[in-house]
């Protein structure tokens, strides 16, 4: 019942607020806010996807920027050869990300814990240096994309169309993820986090369930990359550098692990703070670090978790609910 109230209120409210951003930006005469907003939505989509493995399955993938970059280069390289059809680019992006996720996942999921973190990082770095070495496609300097992905009825030229595409995809992905969380697959996936041995003993393939989640997560992150390429009109190796993987993890963690909408709140908070601190000093990381530490320590399980009074672990005691209300205030200050 509490879950449905969450779905009934928080999700529509969140997406209404997000839908208002372009109009408010126009009213304020600040088109930059749409670009910033689109960037936030794109990272939110990637973080939402990462949460499928990180939050649900408890697998710390430290290489998800790889998929973001693959999505970018799917647009960049195809457009380099004059293939601007968005559907073709999307299909290539999905197929490439799925294949890479399948291979990388098959290797990485033989390990767990630190091993998994290191191998996902290693694969991401391999793709990073592969992109750097691609001289024809700009190498280190990146690749300019002159034509936006064209989807027939619309194309992703400019911030506004990218914003709405990201908004729509994020909404669809959130609704899908909410369903998945309660579905047999989602329940088993989360169970593999808590107790893989028991999942095994019940007759499910822990490896198979994890690999499926990893591939789905990689593909969704790749689609976020496709949007990012259109937003920046640029494909660069830096999109798949390891700090980007780290940022995605931070977004998921401060938003609340395993909480479906947490990564969206995490991405909004992280990127808004980054923007705010950047306007103060170029050493914005100095300010960002402590804030992330405080959020991680105060709101255990992320500040998105502070919405727990709307979507608690079943039958949360009243006292806990009040505590989380206080956290909401803290977090929104």
């Amino acid at each position, binding site marked *: 019942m509490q879950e449905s109230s969450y779905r009934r209120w928080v999700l529509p409210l969140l997406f209404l607020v997000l839908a208002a951003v372009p109009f408010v930006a126009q009213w304020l005469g600040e088109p930059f806010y749409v670009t910033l907003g689109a960037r936030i939505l794109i990272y939110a989509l990637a973080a939402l996807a990462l949460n499928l493995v990180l939050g649900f399955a408890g697998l710390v993938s430290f290489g998800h920027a790889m998929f973001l970059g693959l999505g970018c280069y799917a647009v960049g390289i195809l457009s380099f050869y004059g293939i601007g059809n968005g559907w073709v680019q999307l299909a290539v992006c999905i197929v490439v990300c799925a294949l890479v996720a399948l291979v990388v996942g098959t290797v990485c999921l033989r390990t767990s814990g630190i091993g998994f973190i290191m191998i996902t990082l290693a694969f991401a770095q391999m793709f990073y240096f592969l992109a750097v070495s691609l001289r024809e496609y700009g190498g280190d300097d990146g690749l300019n994309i002159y034509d936006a992905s064209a989807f027939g009825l619309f194309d992703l030229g400019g911030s506004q169309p990218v914003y709405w595409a990201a908004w729509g995809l994020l909404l669809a992905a959130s609704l899908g993820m909410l369903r998945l969380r309660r579905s047999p697959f989602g329940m088993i996936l989360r169970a593999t986090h808590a107790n893989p041995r028991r999942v095994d003993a019940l*007759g499910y393939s822990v490896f198979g369930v994890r690999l499926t989640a990893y591939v789905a997560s990689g593909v969704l992150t790749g689609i976020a990359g496709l949007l990012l390429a259109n937003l920046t009109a640029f494909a660069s190796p830096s999109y798949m550098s390891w700090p980007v993987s780290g940022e995605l993890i931070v977004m998921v963690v401060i938003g609340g692990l395993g909480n479906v909408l947490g990564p969206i709140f995490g991405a909004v908070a992280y990127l808004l703070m980054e923007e705010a601190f950047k306007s103060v000093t170029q050493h914005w990381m100095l300010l960002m670090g402590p804030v992330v530490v405080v959020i991680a320590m105060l709101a255990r399980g992320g500040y998105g978790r502070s919405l727990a009074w709307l979507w608690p672990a079943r039958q949360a005691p009243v006292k806990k609910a009040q505590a989380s209300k206080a956290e909401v205030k803290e977090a929104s200050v």
Partner: protein
Amino acid sequence: MTAATMAAPAALATRDLVRRFGGLAATDGVSLDVAPGELHALIGPNGAGKTTLINLLSGELRPDGGAVTLGAADVSRATVQERVALGMLRSYQVTSVFDSYTVLENACLAALRKRRRGLSAWTALRNCADVVDAAREALSACRLDAVAEAPVESLAYGQRRQLEIAMALAGQPSVLLLDEPMAGMSAAESAGVIALLQSLKGRYTIVLVEHDMNAVFALADRISVLVYGKIIATGTADAIRNHPDVRRAYLGDDADA
């Protein structure tokens, strides 16, 4: 009863099963026959290799030698999943349930495998009526219906142990491996589980590892005694109770069980 079960082909059997850990043979040439519908108890002092044997049967450990057969199938090299697919399910000595889920959800996850072939990512688990029905049936067999909606974290220890058995039942097994289902229970809780196992007896082929001798002697059709990885005797409760080697190795001369 005993004569009849012995004559039938074995539901579960091992031949010269060996498993070593370094120089220690934890399972040392074990040959075991469990007839369909039999409740076969495994007893033995601590460190005799009972849990190793259960793990070899369930597939969590691979044998270094020998064979395990389930019905007509040789499953010596089969994975846990393949053995589960053939209907062999187990419970754990250390309670191993999903703490963050409700009792019903735990049972549903156990029941799911038998009812659905693929795993849907769309329909909510609790809307899969057939799965929920099977889960509720297993819970009521273990007298857990009253706490079906409670989170597992809130259960008393004895109830968690019962859920452990309910989850094995919900998977609709033909062979049940129960690893010390009464471990750590109070006398009253144990009595409840003994009554439960009594009601299951005959409907499933059961391998029971248990320390509680009263329970074993009351429940088992046959008992095998494991010492240092070897079976030193197999027989009915009376035969085991009076077996000279068993008395010496395990029960002690003053045993009055």
